[in-house]
């Protein structure tokens, strides 16, 4: 019986609407629909099955379960990105526990949970396993707090499990044999099993049996303890794989009495069987002489991640020249500018490139430079996303990329040496980044570095109308930079700034916009406590957190606040804030 006092006709209308809305999947569209009127809001709430919450503290779990009754899938994000770089104190928060208990009570039919940067305990995993009978997919990205025991419970209880993905999590090393927990008496529904971030070895025999009875397995990402010989045994059992994380891709060097006598792995045979692989990663302990083994499948690859292997230019060339269909390529800078040129020559369809530093120190030689960036911009015209670490850069190369790659949506350039200008002209990097925001009309995410003045930020504010995420470090002259950004970037959602001279007046200029943002992070800037209090006073629904990092004892900054992290919450400040976090 409906408890709502609406007429019969209206109810019919709502039912019709629900039947239509079931087909609406985009969450932005759904958010828009829910704003039309109360009736539409109700209808939308009844039909939403996938929920995305970008900041777990923006809303209390109860409010979610009160509004949405029929969720199948929940994606929760916790800590902000700068937590990945030790800028956030441990035990800051982002606990999954309150969420799992509330959801367990409300959503019997929940099938999928994805978490990013949250604290998840073994108990939480046990609650998932026991509460959601048809549970199918668990994806944990950059999470921590759980161990193999928790995984074991999931494996044991979730008989319909399709997806179990661990992505760059910090898993407690509790030496528990979770792989053996999967039911052994029948075939599984597993489609995806990823544990490449796991530090402890898994029971290989159990893994082999598991793969053998998982006919639907398409995605398998192994950790570095799986040797190349073991890999080949697995691939021969699962020729239907489309996504493979190779594990070590080198020889095993621990004593294993079970292992048959040492033989050179049979390369040619094994990968030839895996014609469906389109996504390849791993190479966690690469034996370079085995790299040619992947040649037979290179032509099919759309995604290749070599970023955990020291591959040089020559070695890369031998691989990349086959990879004509490549769309995503992650690598270390060990491939040098020469390697990037090879990428530019071969991968004309490339959409995403990430170049990570082998040596992250500030005075390193730097094997990649503006030369590599320019080469990529000339060869890979369809580039949409780039993350590039380097020691030196020029405005000219960045400007060239802005002209050659108009489809760029994500541009993240990290010049490791802080405050480095354009090394050829000696000028700040303003013009380069300015060209990016000006010419790349689809740009939604930007990370800047190098020597920058307020001019760069005026460009960003003026042209970066679609920018949703902006990362700034060690930049600018003064407050006006922040003012330009907050006043100009009307779509800004996530702002993360560190070690830049932005202060209170810059902060005030964003008062009109903070409610629309997912969060603002300012650390080691020139914002004072008074300034933060003022913001908190003017915007009562904004949770204004002020804290300092763990290592910071001494080094008083006087009035300056160490870290400011603020976000809008519908349910007031959180109750689980630790002592060192002050909510104003």
């Amino acid at each position: 019986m409906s408890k709502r006092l609406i007429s019969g006709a209206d109810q019919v209308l709502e039912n019709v609407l629900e039947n239509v809305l079931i087909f609406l999947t985009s969450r932005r569209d759904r958010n828009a629909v829910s704003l039309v009127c109360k009736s539409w809001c109700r209808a939308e709430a009844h039909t939403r099955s996938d929920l995305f919450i970008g900041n777990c503290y923006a809303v209390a779990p109860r409010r979610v379960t009160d509004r949405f009754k029929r969720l199948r899938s929940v994606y929760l994000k916790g800590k902000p990105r700068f937590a990945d770089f030790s800028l956030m104190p441990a035990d800051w928060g982002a606990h999954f526990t309150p969420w799992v208990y509330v959801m367990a009570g409300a959503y019997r039919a929940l099938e999928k949970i994805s978490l990013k940067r949250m604290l998840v305990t073994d108990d939480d995993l046990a609650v998932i396993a026991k509460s959601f009978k048809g549970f199918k997919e668990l994806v944990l990205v950059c999470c921590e707090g759980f161990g193999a025991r928790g995984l074991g419970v999931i494996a044991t209880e979730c008989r319909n499990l399709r997806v179990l993905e661990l992505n760059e999590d910090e898993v407690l090393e509790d030496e528990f044999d979770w792989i053996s927990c999967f039911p052994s008496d029948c075939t599984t529904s597993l489609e995806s099993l990823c544990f490449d971030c796991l530090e402890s070895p898994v029971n290989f025999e159990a893994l082999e049996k598991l793969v053998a009875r998982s006919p639907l397995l398409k995605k398998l990402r192994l950790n570095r303890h799986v040797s190349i010989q073991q890999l080949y045994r697995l691939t021969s059992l699962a020729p239907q794989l489309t996504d493979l994380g190779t594990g070590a891709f080198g020889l095993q060097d621990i004593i294993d009495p079970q292992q048959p006598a040492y033989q050179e792995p049979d390369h040619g045979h094994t990968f030839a069987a895996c014609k469906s692989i389109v996504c390849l990663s791993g190479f966690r302990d690469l034996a370079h002489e085995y790299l040619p083994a992947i040649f037979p499948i290179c032509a099919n690859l759309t995604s290749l991640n070599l970023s955990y292997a020291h591959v040089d230019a020559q070695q890369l060339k031998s691989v990349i020249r086959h990879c004509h269909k490549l769309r995503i390529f992650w690598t270390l800078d060990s491939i040098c500018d020469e390697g990037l040129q090879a990428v530019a020559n071969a991968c004309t369809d490339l959409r995403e490139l990430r170049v990570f530093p082998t040596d992250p120190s500030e005075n390193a030689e730097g094997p990649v430079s503006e030369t590599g960036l320019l080469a990529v911009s000339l060869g890979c015209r369809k580039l949409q996303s780039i993350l590039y670490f380097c020691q030196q850069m020029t405005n000219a190369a960045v400007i060239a990329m802005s002209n050659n790659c108009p489809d760029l949506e994500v541009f993240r350039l990290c010049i490791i040496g802080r405050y480095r200008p354009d090394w050829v002209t000696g000028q700040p990097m303003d013009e380069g980044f300015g060209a990016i925001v000006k010419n790349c009309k689809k740009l939604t995410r930007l990370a800047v570095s190098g020597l920058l003045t307020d001019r760069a930020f005026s460009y960003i504010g003026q042209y970066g109308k679609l920018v949703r995420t902006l990362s700034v470090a060690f930049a600018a002259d003064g407050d006006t930079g922040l003012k330009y950004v907050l006043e100009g970037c009307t779509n800004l959602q996530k702002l993360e700034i560190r070690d830049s001279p932005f202060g209170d007046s810059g902060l005030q200029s964003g008062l009109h916009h903070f409610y629309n943002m997912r969060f603002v992070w300012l650390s080691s800037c020139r914002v004072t406590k008074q300034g933060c209090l003022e913001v908190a006073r003017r915007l009562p629904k904004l949770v204004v957190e002020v804290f300092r990092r763990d290592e910071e004892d001494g080094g008083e900054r006087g009035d300056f606040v160490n870290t400011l992290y603020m976000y809008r919450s519908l349910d007031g400040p959180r109750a689980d804030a630790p002592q060192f976090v002050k909510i104003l």
Partner: protein
Amino acid sequence: MMHLKETELCLGLPGGGEADTLKVNGKRGYSETVDLMLNLQTNDQSSSSTDLKDKKLQTSAKNNKDLIKPPAKAQVVGWPPVRNYRKNVMAQKSNTEEVTEKVVTTPGGSGSAAAFVKVSMDGAPYLRKVDLKLYESYQQLSDALAKMFSSFTMGDYGSQGMIDFMNESKLMDLLNSSEYVPSYEDKDGDWMLVGDVPWQMFVDSCKRLRIMKGSDAIGLAPRAMEKCKNRC
């Protein structure tokens, strides 16, 4: 006039808790942290001074193309923005990875203290890694390998520790026996018999070791002799 503040390089975070940062008082903004090198040049003791005009004047002569590199490796937390997970994985790798010239890093970069090479033995179920820098002669290496692969015996090396390649018949005797001989892959990618060059040269050029049956190693002998002739 170029704002010289922009060319100032900071070693650390304002208010950061590094060993290098000097005592400061009261309000401190990022523009007040001072590059150590500037300190040395200007001989200015007062780093807590908020007036940087003097320092700026002194640096005005500097061509702003010159990169003022901090003298010491700066320990900035969370910079560059590489995820801790990735940093940990790479740190682990550089501890155990064999030294190869192919990795382009800082000159005298990581891993130069040890020279790990993989050692495999035909028929053995596992392979090991040895740090060649721990040994000073072929005999020491031989002893260590013998301990690792207990069924393995190395042929007699003669007094200088080098195989006498010029004595073809002696070499052939060794290779025809059923004993194991060690071979190694050198910088050029060729497989050579261990013992053909002076020890230090071997350590520098050895990338990988393989202990094979003498009879299997016969193919290596002519090449080894060839190279030896070229070197002598």
